[in-house]
């Protein structure tokens, strides 16, 4: 092999390569799917309920961006054998690392709380008190990670991924007008208003969350994927991203075809599930609730896990699911604390999580471009990546994407502060 091929050879697809692909499969699909966590489902639901099919077009470019960015993280993991947090610490030093870590920990604690809130909401729809479901869920999550090894945990995760299919059924139960859906999916419709921009940024932020890149790279490293096996990982990433966004697509469709049509205002994912029953039938509501429960449980494992990975990497403590508790004490204690905080917050009576979520979204908005810029510099660093640096077109696409996020965030700030400026900007762009 004189030149390691960047693309899998198309000439022959043998059984052997299919088996190899199946064994490599995991990190990409899991990471992308966890992107559809409790807050992800909420965001997509609200997008459908408030804007109808108006945001469907965004999902296509967002999927492409997700594939590009995830591919970079996976490639860095395979080439360097190191996690993203590790590379950031070694290349940029303590200050930037601490800044990014602080941001990540804040958003991930907030998100973990949101996952447990999602578990509480989903089980309460079926009539189970959160004081039973949340502690049980926390215990299950903790046992899975502390008692399992990477292979076992990954299998459980992959099973969790398949349950997202309930949203496909829910979408059909909602009886949307399919030609209308198809048209909205390809024809962009942009308006410059504060709610639209806010939703735009929320959608980008939930689909391409900063922690996902850290988690993906760490799990590629822990799975021991190197450049030889990497071409299969690339397909893992591509398939994962596409499946995930198809799920997101159907969630938007469910809510657009029912709640938006009927003009029912909703605030949370459990509102959505409850409001679905009278319009689309009890089954649709249950499917939605089950989907929410699955997603929240899944993310309640992965989010604390990913946080623990990168905090340990940044400080150089031993980490990984295959390590013994004795060898990686920080890893396991940090994970435990994350779970405890997440579960405990939800059980405090009369607590309002909305403000926490707003702060988390804001931090996330600042963090995303920062992490992406750091990734782009790292992936183009020849002393790290050798010949596997980004091709020019990918850099161009990535910078364009980062530019769009920054512009959207700035626009949001402007429109929020000066609502009357929205019209001027709108006319200037059109």
């Amino acid at each position, binding site marked *: 092999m004189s030149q390691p091929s960047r693309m899998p050879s198309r000439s022959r697809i043998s059984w052997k390569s299919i088996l190899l692909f199946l064994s490599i499969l995991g990190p990409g699909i899991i990471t992308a799917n966890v992107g559809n966590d409790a807050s992800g489902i909420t965001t997509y639901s609200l997008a459908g309920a408030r804007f109808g099919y108006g945001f469907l077009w965004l999902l296509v470019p967002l999927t492409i961006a997700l594939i590009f960015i995830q591919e970079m993280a996976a490639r860095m993991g395979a080439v360097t054998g190191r996690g993203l947090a590790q590379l950031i610490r070694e290349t940029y030093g*303590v200050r930037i690392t601490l800044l990014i870590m602080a941001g990540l920990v804040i958003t991930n604690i907030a998100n973990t709380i949101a996952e447990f809130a999602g578990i509480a909401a989903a089980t309460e729809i079926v009539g189970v008190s959160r004081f039973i479901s949340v502690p049980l869920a926390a215990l299950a999550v903790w046992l899975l990670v502390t008692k399992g090894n990477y292979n076992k945990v990954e299998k459980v995760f992959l099973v969790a991924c398949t349950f997202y299919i309930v949203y496909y059924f829910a979408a059909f139960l909602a009886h949307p007008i399919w030609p209308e859906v198809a048209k909205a999916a390809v024809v962009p419709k942009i308006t410059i208003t504060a709610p639209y921009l806010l939703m735009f940024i929320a959608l980008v932020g939930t689909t391409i969350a900063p922690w996902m890149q850290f988690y993906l790279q760490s799990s590629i490293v822990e799975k021991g994927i190197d450049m030889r096996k990497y071409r299969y990982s690339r397909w893992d990433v591509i398939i994962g991203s596409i499946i995930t966004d198809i799920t997101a697509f159907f969630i938007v469709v469910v809510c657009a075809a029912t709640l938006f049509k009927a003009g029912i205002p909703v605030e949370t994912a459990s509102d959505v599930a409850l409001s679905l029953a009278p319009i689309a039938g009890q089954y649709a509501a249950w499917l939605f609730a089950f989907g929410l429960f699955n997603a929240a449980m899944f993310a309640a494992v992965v989010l604390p896990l990913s946080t623990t990975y990168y905090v340990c990497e940044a400080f150089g403590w031993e980490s990984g699911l295959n390590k013994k508790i004795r060898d990686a004490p920080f890893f396991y204690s940090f994970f435990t604390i994350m779970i405890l905080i997440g579960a405990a917050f939800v059980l405090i009576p009369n607590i309002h999580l909305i403000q926490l979520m707003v702060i988390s979204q804001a931090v996330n908005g600042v963090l995303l471009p920062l992490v992406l810029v750091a990734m782009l510099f790292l992936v183009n660093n020849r002393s790290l990546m050798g010949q596997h640096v980004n091709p020019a077109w990918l850099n161009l696409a990535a910078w364009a994407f980062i530019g769009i996020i920054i512009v959207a965030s700035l626009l949001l700030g402007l429109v929020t502060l000066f609502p009357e400026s929205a019209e001027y900007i709108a006319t200037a762009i059109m």
Partner: protein
Amino acid sequence: MAGKDHVRQIRRMLEDIEDTEKASHVLYLSSILGTRVFDERARHLGRIKDIAIDPVGGFPKAVAVIVKKWFLRRRTLSWEGFDLGEFPQRLVVHAPLPLSQLPRNCVFVGDKILDQQLVDTNGIKIIRANDVAFIPIHNTLFLASISIGLKGLLRRIGLNTDGWSMKENLVPWAYVEPLEGKFRDIKLKISESRLGDIHPADFADLLEKLAREQRLSLFRNLSNRYASRILDEADAEVRMSLVSEIPQRRLVHIFTLMYEGNVADILLSLPEAKRRELLVLMGPAEARHFQLLMSCNKESAGRFMTRKFITVLPQDSAREIIRKIQASDPPRVLHAVYVVKHDLTLVGTISLRNLLISPSGDPASKLLKKKLVYVRKSAHKNVVYSMMAKYDLTSIPVVDRKHRIIGVINVEDLLKERVYVPAKQDAEQV
């Protein structure tokens, strides 16, 4: 010798590191990086970006500095000519010496050591290098240790931690082994292969810096021979703390390899019960010998003599004597062989020089030194020293009342003692 002097100074400084009061002796990389550099005409050359060391020896020296001005001008200067006088405000360099070629094997501290992963000998990740401590002596910088504590981390984000009561957590450079390879993990070498490179005297100093647990685990891995040399070199306090921690059987084995005067000192400072246990473990001959040593006055010849010497008979030929030396378990120090009759009465001394230059057929009686010099075990050490000085001896036999040889005093063992030399003798030497 200047080198020896440096080592002694460094040792003193190393002791100071623990002492936060005197922390001004230590310069941290975090404070050096970014310092402005001026030439002697006060022209600004740029800021320090990195420092290169020559990683040879226990305390590597800084050899080169990367100075960067604005964005692009980056220069490599030799450390020669750098003046630490005005640090930390600025660094002045007399006659900047640009280096077109860096010394071979030199290591950039900021790039290759700072923020890198420390792993133990089993490859388990421990922590990252948060800072690097240098010791300045005159205008030379010596790398002393790696800071792995919170204090180093806080300094890195720009906090001024001087005078904080927080403990600086340092790993002496002697324990550190940069791993070669594509990436730059640093190994904490607690492996014997590299420990062998450190002189036992330096090692004994380093042992003092360690916590009891670390010291024990380190000592456990040493060979008995190396351990015996460390016990010989360590000062009384460290020596006794080590002795109390070594299992008795091993201790007895180590004793047989040590300088006997030291063993006598150790035995004498142990509690009666423990001393008796050790003597029993030693076996009768050994025990009798040490009891003799202990019975001698602390300042007398009997305490400095060793019974590890080689005796020959008057009729042995030079060839036979050499063969006898080769066949014996050679003593740690060997200056001469002693000619005795069958009843061990001393006949004379043969220096190794005479042995080597004489015809191999000559009998021992022909090779003897002209003057037979000896001392009694009760002789004061000052007398022994004077006799050695007067007759240019490197060793001197000790005899009992019946003129039988019972031991030998080597100059090395006497040198460690504070000997009073009368002024008259001093004058004679010059």
